[in-house]
């Protein structure tokens, strides 16, 4: 396994410090969720059998639209500056 890698998975069910997570396509696995405050339905990053952080879906959505905007603005400034 890659040791700086963490793979996103969705929390299906939770019991105390253990949760069933779905890596997609029906790949289910029990992971330890002691380190995170994850609810059923959340995406978590899983590393070596432990959820290490909850993934913010909204932020993921916003990053790309933000970058499209940054690049449009920068390109416009570049063009104006050059003319």
């Amino acid at each position: 396994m890659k040791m700086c890698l963490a793979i996103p998975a969705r929390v299906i069910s939770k019991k105390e410090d253990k949760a069933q997570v779905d890596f997609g396509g029906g790949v289910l696995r029990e992971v330890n969720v002691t380190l995170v405050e994850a609810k059923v339905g959340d995406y978590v990053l899983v590393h070596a059998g432990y959820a290490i952080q909850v993934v913010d879906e909204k932020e993921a959505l916003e990053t790309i639209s933000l970058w499209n905007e940054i690049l449009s603005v920068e390109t416009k400034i570049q063009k104006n500056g050059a003319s």
Partner: protein
Amino acid sequence: MERDPLGGNQNPEKRGKLTLMTEKLGFRDPELAKRVAKRIQELAPMKGTVKICHVCGTHEWTITHYGIRSLLPSNVEVIAGPGCPVCIVPASEIDEAVQLSLKGVTLTCFGDVLRVPGSKMSLLDAKAKGADVRIVYGVSDAVEIAKKEQDKEFVFFAVGFETTAPSTAVEVSHKPPKNLSFLISHRVIPPAMKMLAEMEDLNLNGFIAPGHVSTIIGLEPYEIFPKTYGMPTVVAGFEPLDILFAIHMITKQLNEGDPILENEYTRAVRWEGNVKAQGLMQEVFDVEDGRWRGLGTIPLSKFVLRKRYVAYDAQSKYDTKIEEGIDLQPGCRCHLVIIGKIKPTECPLFMKACTPQNPVGACMVSVEGTCRVWAKITSSLPQKT
């Protein structure tokens, strides 16, 4: 079919939903990648070279796999620092694990560690000599095995950076079975980055900080890089566009002459990091000066178990402490590859005496080692006839 850099299933239909989601959202969108690359071209300085260093094996994988370097201007260089946790374990600590396993203790470890060379032998060699060495997916498996086989003594070889150390801290603090102890080889990344920043002949201009380590430690530990060393520092995720965005942010900061700390990986990294994990690490570990393979001793870079957990410290329990080991086999230039001073292709052993099938150095053993990552790409290129 292209491999999934998130390590998931090769079939896109069966990949993790979020992996699919980030892909659909455009984190691998070639058009957007071209636009970012064009902006990086415009932001790059007219004169001189920009040298950006990352410290994560998975970042190197993404960069190499997606050919990110080919999208960059010729004077913007991205180099791989010591980001492979298995590669930097010094031979002396492999020797300790080997010695314990040969004494009859059952050693549990991550699969990547098995073939890392010690001074004389690897754990795989020890296994061939009859030692009981078992691969586990994580420390929780090591705990379960020890509970099931109470008549045996077990040691878990705890390798990894701050991404992995919290899982060890969870188990140590939750009263593991008495027949299990821990050989702690965890290392802390920011002190190694500090060492690189201070290497004058390396001339680094910016850092891409490791995304998953940062989910745990947050952003604060990187503040010294822009403040003290004037180096733009950006925490980045692992999709190809995450890397390109980070390079854009760094070149822009250099262009404007205003080095700051920024977070590109906002979907997973918060300013404060994972506070619970930090608390547990503090409860369980002290920080000491530590040796890194090929790099020497780095101040305050190694986790050790606090005195209150001495009963779980394999070094004390079995009186095993090896100070010196042979980190580099003759001809091996891992120590230069690991700090990005030379490319794997500049090592005379690369793909000749040292291959993934017969690795000489640690950088060729681990799937995250720079030489191993490059070997995969080199071998997939069309061969000259």
